[in-house]
């Protein structure tokens, strides 16, 4: 056992005194650090970094002893603390000072802690409000007058998350081979690109190839855009023009938006 622990009260001594803590309740490394700072009654702006680092590491060991999952975030913070501690032990280096001397190596951590503390408290304050369904209730009984007539539907209300989630649930349900492109590669894929072109064409009649790639002139982008255009051409959704040799490539929607005919009838038509 580390003899130093005898002199310095640590987190573990706290446990022996019957002070109990919900080990798994620390909401991340910043939360744990704040707890240690409060427990040691030190100034957040002047953290005794050696002490706090030691207690922090003790805590992580404790989590390991208890076979709790030590999340990567906790370990990341441990290395940050050790880094700060080592920088504070070093005598001030003149050269380094000129480069990046912002003063205290703890400054960034203190800033994060203060900011985190703000939101932690804000969370407690909003959580203490009188919440609908918990402290406050609305009328649960439908008015008889309302149940009499339910006719038209009002505006649609659905969230984007519900839409994606519905799609995700669907994908989970059906066999993979039903899809031609289930898992699009990285950020770029033809389907996205087709969507992009279609949405641009909703507002305008003509588009230039260059416009589609101007933001992101990479070979991947050019190829994907080109393939998307070929696909749209094949589907006869767009037509492509070129103003002479080496001229700009233009394309226009092949079908005018309103030309599609009556919706109801269209759906009924044989597929």
């Amino acid at each position, binding site marked *: 056992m580390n003899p130093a622990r005898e002199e310095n009260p640590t987190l573990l001594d706290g446990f022996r005194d019957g002070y109990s803590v919900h080990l798994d309740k620390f909401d991340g490394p910043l939360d744990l650090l704040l707890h240690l700072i409060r427990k040691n009654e030190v100034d957040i702006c002047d953290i005794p970094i050696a002490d706090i680092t030691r207690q922090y590491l003790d805590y992580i060991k404790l989590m390991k002893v208890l076979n709790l999952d030590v999340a990567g975030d906790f370990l990341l913070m441990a290395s940050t603390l050790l880094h700060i501690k080592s920088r504070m032990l070093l005598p001030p280096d003149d050269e380094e000072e000129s480069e990046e001397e912002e003063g205290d190596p703890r400054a960034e951590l203190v800033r994060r802690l203060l900011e985190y503390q703000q939101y932690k408290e804000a969370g407690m304050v909003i959580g203490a409000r009188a919440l609908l369904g918990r402290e406050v209730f609305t009328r649960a*009984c439908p008015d008889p007058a309302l149940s009499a007539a339910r006719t038209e539907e009002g505006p649609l209300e659905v969230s984007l998350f519900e839409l994606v989630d519905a799609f995700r649930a669907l994908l989970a349900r059906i066999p993979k081979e039903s899809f031609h492109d289930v898992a699009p590669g990285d950020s770029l894929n033809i389907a996205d690109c087709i969507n992009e072109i279609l*949405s641009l064409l909703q507002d305008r009649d003509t588009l230039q190839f260059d416009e589609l790639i101007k933001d992101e002139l990479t070979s991947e982008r050019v190829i994907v855009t080109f393939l998307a255009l070929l696909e749209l051409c094949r589907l006869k959704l767009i037509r492509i023009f070129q103003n002479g040799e080496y001229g700009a490539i233009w394309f226009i929607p092949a079908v005018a938006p309103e030309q599609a005919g009556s919706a109801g009838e269209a*759906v009924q038509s044989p597929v």
Partner: protein
Amino acid sequence: MSLPAIIESIIFAADAALSLDRLCEMLPEYERGDIKTALTELAEFHEGRGGGFGLVEVAGGWQFRTHPVLQEYVVRHIKAKTAKFSQSALETLAIIAYRQPLTRAEVEHLRGVDCGGVLKSLLEKKLVKILGKKDIPGRPLIYGTSKEFLEVFGLKDLKSLPTLREIQALDETPQFERQEELPLEPDQAPPVDSSLLFDDPE
């Protein structure tokens, strides 16, 4: 809090009319007679103030109801009720959004059920539109999402649709396994009686 206020809040939040018996059961700390008096007084109070609703006794229970004379106004609201999406509408819309342009047969292949009705209602709601006809035998119609679709979902363009991968990423925790061996000092943590640690002070 006063007994009438208590009774009012219970009846207000209840999902059906409440009988005197039931109210007495819920408020054992009050006399039945007092509860009964409070109910009558409340009913009289609301009738007298000429507001939009009153406390009435119906089918053996007490309930707040809007006044029949105001029904004309109350019913105007019905049309404002926001429409909820059915699961099948949502699924179909999702398929079209993520796989457009595609035909009805392709939608149905993915969902495994007939989608004519759902598709029709999506077209009527103008969330989906016909983009053209596919150049294959039968020349089926090709569908895609509309401008209204973007408006309903508050999207700037189709490119802003979240990808599946992004939603799936919410379930994944970034891994820091490699750091496992990082900074901890080699000495062992002291043995701790772990039963102690979870002592809940509450």
